[in-house]
């Protein structure tokens, strides 16, 4: 047959490679800064744009969509052309794809730092960018399918099925999860509420892992591993079976992110079952990859590219075993909300994605530039540094996770939480966070070595934008010959039909989970006592979303005694029906806030406390790693948006009365005035229009609707002093030391380490006493508290003995120290 001449488009591959390198450095660098912030809060720089809440989404988006995304496209554009023996279908589409994607990345970085976010993890970008992503993604798919149609080989090789599945999977996920109602260019509300939003979001979040971080990489593995090892893949049959099983099963597993949470039992069961089943196809892929190298291990020893690919595939095997284990309810109890999850994703990200990308680049760049790798030795150094970095990253975090979990659930023999102050459990693990910084720096150093090595390789080589090649044209295949062709092979020949089947396999899982959650009402039982947010609370909630508080705080109390004792009543599905978006969070770097507004509950703090805490958390508690939010006291609420927000909420089904949007601002100002007056009583002057006031209102709304009405009028607590019980002070050193320890762990947050009181909180060392300084009076104060003023009633957390020790510490040690 006549050979046709054509040109491979190498330039587009080069562009994507360069973008991979640039965004890789940026993404990792931001990760290192975020790690620094968790170890040393000073690195939040006191600026709203650089707090952890805003930086973390920049890191995750930069790594996933910028670094990994560009690497995928580089790998796909190169291998597709070679596999199908043709140039990409359309140069214009390729260009649009490249520049469109880079625009999205830049817009993402800018808007996330500016605080424009939907508050849904890994889908934080606001609606205009979502639309742009859709357009670019369609261009990518169109280009890919077009290329398949104009190909010069009959058979579509395994790698390309994975690319197609990637295109389809991401398209479905992105569209379904991004349904939002815009209220301005920069702000929208998810159309789903509460538990529904959570199911859709984690169906998306989990499958972003599947279809952005797994399927394209299996595709890359099926091409670059055989190429780099110069051996065919181990079993082609295995690749077919594991392809169909994997894409079918993945779509079901999302609810494993929501175990023990406010989700119907059936949805949780589904998530667990399918997660466990996922081990099989995942390991099918790993085994197929590793066995490809059988008998070629000597080559692995000599080639950094192969070493990276092997580590990648091995890390894939580890993560896909660990993941299903983490979906078991008992294990999930430990891993969820702790650093376990963070370690897990970094094994996947640095090991699997990083390994495949680095391996691919070390093989591909010399090939494209027709030269040898500048230095195999530097590549090996990169390999060892980055492998070490993965270990230094993961091991301390696993340790931290277990340590913190054990502390959260430890009880004293008397049946009280051993560490009632959340901060104690955090202080224990902050050293691990410092180690993590080292890991990040190592990984970055290795990456920079690679950039240098590849740059040198490029400089030494020669590059042609359009590489000439020739191949015979493809004879039209005609209909299936039932004797000679099996169904799968026939399907693969037909790109479009193949895509449709893939689409169906993908849709089933999502549909079965999401449709009942949204359309069967009984899945979300409503609670009558739950009322919509007042306009002020709504503004506060939007600030909570904007500042990214959800990256550190959960709002989801699971039904374990050690959680309900610490935070309060466990969370119910019906509480969240007005939450657009839901804000359950996924990691508890700080304490859960679902019950922050339950007066008399263990989490309640009064307005003055919140004010001082937001102004400077480290002043309240030196060991805190929460960033300060001092600008909340400076910036005003944007009142012009409030009526629009109310109308949007009404559209989404929140039952505000007709025409409420017109009254909203007045209501908002009235409520704000109340909080401002309350603060004034504590000596804090603040204009009611400030964002701080809205944030405090929101904090006080959390959990209030379902609290069982323990609102105690302030004066009933202050009964006549004659009713105080006799308290014998304990003045031996052991008891005083025990009292001191309790005080330092718990009371410092308000009364200060020296007992002199922070900001407006009472000094316990001077002569002035609000309620008297008899042992009985002080004991009473500590045990009953004064919830209206913000003093916590400690009788539910400490034994009488402990409270007596505290009383003694206050009246003996603190008074003594002060009189010196």
């Amino acid at each position, binding site marked *: 047959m006549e*050979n046709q001449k054509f040109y491979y488009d190498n330039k587009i591959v080069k562009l994507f490679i360069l973008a991979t390198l640039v965004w890789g450095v940026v993404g990792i660098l931001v990760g290192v800064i975020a790690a620094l912030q968790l170890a040393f809060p000073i690195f939040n720089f006191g600026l709203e744009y650089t707090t952890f809440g805003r930086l973390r989404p920049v890191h995750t988006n930069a790594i996933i969509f910028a670094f990994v995304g560009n690497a995928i496209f580089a790998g796909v554009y190169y291998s597709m052309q*070679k*596999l199908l*023996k043709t140039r990409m279908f359309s140069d214009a589409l390729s260009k649009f794809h490249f520049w469109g994607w880079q625009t999205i990345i830049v817009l993402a970085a800018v808007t996330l730092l500016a605080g424009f976010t939907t508050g849904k993890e890994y889908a934080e970008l606001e609606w205009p960018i979502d639309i742009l992503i859709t357009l670019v993604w369609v261009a990518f798919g169109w280009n890919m399918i077009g290329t398949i149609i104009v190909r*010069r*080989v*009959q*058979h579509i*090789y395994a790698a390309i099925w994975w690319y197609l599945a990637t295109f389809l999977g991401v398209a479905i996920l992105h569209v379904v999860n991004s349904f939002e109602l815009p209220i301005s260019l920069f702000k929208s509300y998810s159309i789903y509420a509460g538990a529904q939003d959570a199911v859709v979001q984690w169906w998306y979040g989990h499958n972003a892992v599947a279809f952005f971080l797994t399927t394209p990489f299996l595709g890359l593995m099926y*091409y670059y591993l*055989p*190429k780099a090892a*110069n051996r*065919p*893949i181990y*079993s*082609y*049959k295995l690749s*077919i*079976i594991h392809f*169909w*099983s994997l894409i*079918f*099963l993945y779509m*079901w597993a999302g609810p494993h992110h929501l175990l023990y949470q406010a989700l*119907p*039992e*059936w949805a949780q*069961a*589904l998530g667990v*079952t399918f997660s466990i*089943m996922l081990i099989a196809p995942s390991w099918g892929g790993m085994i197929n990859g590793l066995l490809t190298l059988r008998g070629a291990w000597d080559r692995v020893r000599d080639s950094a590219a192969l070493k990276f690919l092997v580590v990648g595939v091995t890390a894939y095997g580890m993560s896909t075993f660990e993941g299903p284990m983490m979906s078991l309810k008992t294990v999930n109890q430990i891993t969820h909300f702790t650093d376990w999850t963070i370690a897990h994703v970094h094994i996947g990200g640095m090991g699997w994605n990083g390994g495949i990308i680095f391996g691919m680049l070390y093989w591909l760049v010399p090939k494209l530039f027709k030269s040898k790798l500048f230095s195999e030795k530097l590549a090996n150094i990169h390999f060892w540094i980055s492998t070490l970095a993965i270990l230094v990253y993961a091991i301390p975090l696993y340790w931290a996770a277990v340590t913190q979990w054990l502390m959260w659930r430890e009880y004293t023999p008397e049946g009280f939480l051993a560490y009632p102050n959340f901060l104690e459990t955090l202080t224990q693990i902050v050293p691990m966070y410092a180690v993590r910084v080292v890991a990040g720096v190592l990984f970055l150093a290795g990456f920079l070595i690679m950039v240098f090595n590849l740059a040198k390789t490029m400089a030494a080589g020669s590059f042609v934008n359009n590489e*000439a*090649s*020739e*191949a*015979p044209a*493809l*004879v039209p*295949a005609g209909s299936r*010959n039932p004797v*000679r*062709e*099996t*169904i*799968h*092979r026939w399907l693969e020949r037909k790109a479009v039909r193949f895509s449709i089947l893939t689409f169906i*396999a993908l849709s*089933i*899982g999502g549909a*079965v989970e999401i449709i*009942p959650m949204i359309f*069967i009402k*009984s*899945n979300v*039982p409503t*609670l009558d006592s739950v009322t919509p947010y007042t306009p002020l609370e709504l503004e506060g909630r939007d600030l909570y979303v904007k500042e990214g508080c959800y990256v550190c705080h959960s709002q989801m109390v699971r039904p374990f005694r050690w959680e309900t004792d610490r935070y309060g009543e466990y969370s*119910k*599905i*019906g509480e969240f029906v007005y939450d657009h978006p839901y804000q359950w969070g996924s990691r508890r770097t700080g304490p859960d806030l679902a019950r922050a507004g339950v007066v008399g509950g263990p989490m309640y703090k009064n307005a003055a406390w919140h004010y001082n805490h937001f102004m400077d958390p480290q002043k309240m508690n030196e060991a805190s790693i929460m960033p300060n939010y001092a600008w909340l006291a400076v910036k005003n609420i944007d009142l012009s948006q409030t009526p629009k927000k109310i109308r949007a909420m009404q559209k989404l089904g929140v039952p505000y009365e007709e025409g409420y949007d017109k009254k909203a601002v007045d209501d908002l100002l009235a409520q704000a005035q109340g909080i401002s007056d309350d603060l004034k009583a504590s000596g804090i002057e603040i204009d009611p229009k400030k964002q701080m006031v809205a944030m405090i209102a929101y904090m006080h709304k959390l959990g209030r609707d379902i609290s069982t009405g323990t609102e105690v009028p302030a004066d009933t607590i202050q009964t006549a002093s004659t009713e105080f019980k006799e308290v014998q002070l304990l003045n031996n050193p052991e008891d005083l030391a025990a009292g001191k320890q309790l005080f330092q762990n718990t009371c410092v947050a308000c009364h200060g380490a020296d007992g002199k009181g922070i900001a407006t909180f009472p000094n316990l060392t001077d002569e002035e006493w609000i309620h008297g300084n008899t042992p009985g009076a002080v004991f009473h104060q500590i045990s009953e508290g004064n919830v209206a003023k913000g003093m916590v009633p400690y009788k539910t957390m400490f034994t009488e003995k402990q409270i007596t020790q505290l009383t003694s510490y206050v009246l003996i040690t603190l008074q003594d120290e002060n009189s010196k």
Partner: protein
Amino acid sequence: MKIVSEVLTSIEGIRIFYIIGLLIFVALFIVIFIRTMRMKNSDMEEIKNSILMDGESEEVTTSN
């Protein structure tokens, strides 16, 4: 708990989705497995090896 019991009653209707899903998977899996296993090994070898032979002007097998 009232809420819990409400959720439980709603399960009856929904379990069916769950079971259907599992059945679809098992059925599909069996079909794909059998089909794949019956493919000719020589064909498989041919495809596997094809990607390693993409030298500039080399003959490409397009036969099925």
